[in-house]
């Protein structure tokens, strides 16, 4: 008897479905789930995860044998790095070694010895010299940031220039210089760097006055930047923009309005302090200058605009935020100016801004409803709903964007403990372990057809701000150093796996 429309019997089908259910249930049950803080504390893995082949021994019993009866407290001035070398070997040998190594250093630079060229010593000067017994130790510029006591970091030059090595300033093509600076700055802590030329248009992005120091920012016919009690002076000569990205913890930005989120936001500034100081030192050794931030938070040029113009990111629905293909929204941008010729990087189109035309996730989640819900961006800047009788003074016209009501935003962002919900909830604030994220990005870069679906799917799958009840779970996570992956844009060494 012929079977009509089915060749799969109901019984067989239900049996297969049952097996699938068992399989799915087993996998779900094996997933680690914590329900509250007690669960976490009870979790036996109080230590960090080690490979299975690492065995723990008893307390006080390392693999090196110890006889505590022979051990007494050590005078640390007797150790080699504490000054103990000279008294042991004698001042004569010490002086001889120093003279020899200094001569070798100069000879290496002169001969362009691989591994000891001027740029290699520049990296050493910026990062390594303070742990060395070198004559060229420099003063740490980041010891203090208290007003009046901080060294002048805006145009800091407290390292020897190329003349110390008997060399002339570094000469390379803009492309070579860009590669060199990127390698150095990534090593020093920048997540990634891009470059731009400070042309006629970009000069309009230089502020007239600094928001914290309250000093005027002016161009002068000088060779080097300097500052006085009333102004930050920039040299009126060809300059290049170094746009710097420093990532922040995506997990912490998913905490909503929380001091944990603000901890992540602050992390980029203390990292930037080190990156800026070391970049300035690096450039100084090469014979160039790095014109940085006069204080920790703000420079002399709009860093967000630089990030977009230099091709780090695209503008977002919240026009105070931009979206990077690699880092998403949870990243801070900084800008440094230099007279080292660099190869400008181009703006990008990954379909993000177009996606923001459809997606309103940040606008919906915004606690103050300061982010525009419009379908199309506009040249016109609306007045703030908080002060409809006041002219717009907080931003510049000339960009067709979705205009955020910044005074309204600041009623949350500017108050304890800050905000950043828009960045945390953004569809692009995702990690990289699931293949779906790359597929989504590739799709929306190619066509806008599925933008609405992607936005809704992101919401349905639960990405974004986490539930309040889960926020203390962060303390149990084993996240990377600094709370983010530093290997996202690395190509060599096998780190980006």
């Amino acid at each position, binding site marked *: 008897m012929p079977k009509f429309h089915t060749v799969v019997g109901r019984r067989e089908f239900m049996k*297969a479905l049952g097996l699938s259910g068992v399989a799915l249930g087993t996998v779900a049950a094996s997933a680690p789930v914590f329900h509250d803080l007690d669960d976490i504390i009870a979790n036996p893995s109080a230590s960090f995860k080690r490979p299975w082949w690492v065995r723990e021994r008893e307390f006080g019993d390392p693999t090196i044998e110890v006889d505590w009866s022979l051990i007494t407290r050590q005078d640390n001035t007797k150790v080699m790095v504490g000054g103990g070398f000279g008294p042991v070997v004698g001042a004569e040998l010490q002086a001889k070694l120093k003279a020899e190594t200094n001569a070798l250093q100069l000879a290496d630079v002169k001969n362009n010895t691989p591994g000891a060229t001027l740029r290699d010593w520049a990296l050493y000067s910026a990062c390594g010299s303070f742990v060395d017994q070198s004559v060229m130790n420099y003063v740490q510029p980041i010891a203090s940031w208290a007003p009046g006591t901080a060294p002048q970091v805006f145009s800091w030059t407290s390292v020897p220039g190329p003349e110390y090595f008997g060399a002339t300033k570094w000469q390379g093509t803009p492309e070579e210089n860009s590669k060199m600076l990127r390698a150095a700055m990534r090593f020093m802590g920048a997540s990634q760097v891009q470059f731009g030329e400070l042309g006629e248009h970009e000069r309009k992005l230089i502020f007239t006055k600094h928001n914290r120091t309250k000093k005027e920012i002016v161009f002068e016919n000088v060779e080097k930047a300097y500052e006085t009690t009333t102004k930050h002076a920039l040299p009126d000569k060809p300059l290049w923009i170094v746009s710097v990205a420093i990532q922040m913890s995506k997990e912490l930005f998913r905490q909503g309005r929380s001091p944990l989120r603000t901890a992540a936001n602050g992390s980029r500034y203390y990292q930037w302090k080190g990156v800026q100081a070391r970049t300035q030192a690096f450039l100084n050794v090469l014979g160039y200058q790095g014109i940085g931030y006069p204080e920790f938070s703000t420079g002399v040029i709009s860093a967000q605009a630089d990030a977009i113009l230099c091709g780090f990111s695209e503008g977002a629905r919240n026009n105070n935020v931009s979206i990077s293909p690699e880092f998403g929204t949870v990243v801070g941008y900084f800008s440094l100016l230099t007279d080292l010729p660099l190869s400008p990087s181009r703006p990008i189109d990954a379909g993000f801004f177009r996606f923001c035309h459809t997606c309103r996730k940040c606008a919906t989640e915004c606690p103050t409803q300061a982010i525009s819900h419009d379908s199309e961006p506009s040249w016109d800047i609306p007045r703030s709903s908080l002060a409809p009788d006041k002219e717009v003074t907080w931003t510049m016209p000339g960009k067709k964007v979705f205009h955020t009501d910044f005074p309204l935003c600041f009623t949350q962002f500017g108050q304890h403990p800050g905000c950043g919900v828009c960045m945390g909830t953004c569809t692009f604030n995702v990690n990289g372990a*699931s293949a779906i994220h790359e597929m989504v990005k590739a799709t929306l870069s190619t066509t806008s057809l599925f933008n609405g679906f992607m936005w809704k799917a992101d919401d*349905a799958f639960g990405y974004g701000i986490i539930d309040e009840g889960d926020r203390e779970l962060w303390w149990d996570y084993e996240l990377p150093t600094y709370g983010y992956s530093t290997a996202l844009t690395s190509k060599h060494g096998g780190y980006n796996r």
Partner: protein
Amino acid sequence: MWFMIGMLVGVLVLGLIWLMKRNNLSLTWYEGLIGVIGMVMLLFTIQNYFGSLAEIEPKAANLFLLVIGLPGIILLALSWQLAARRVKKA
């Protein structure tokens, strides 16, 4: 991890081909297509399930099982039953 999964899938596919040859079986084009689609969906689910758990996104992980994994398994079961029924009928 993906090296191991690739090896496993390779061995399974080879085993399937060997079994089919031994029993003198063959799949129709649509049985094969449904099976391949089911297998791709299942692998995609496995990747995204464990990826989402690694990302601390348990809701996304479970939804991948439901939205892509379950249809994938159904397609695989369908492919198998279509072939089995066809052979049995013959």
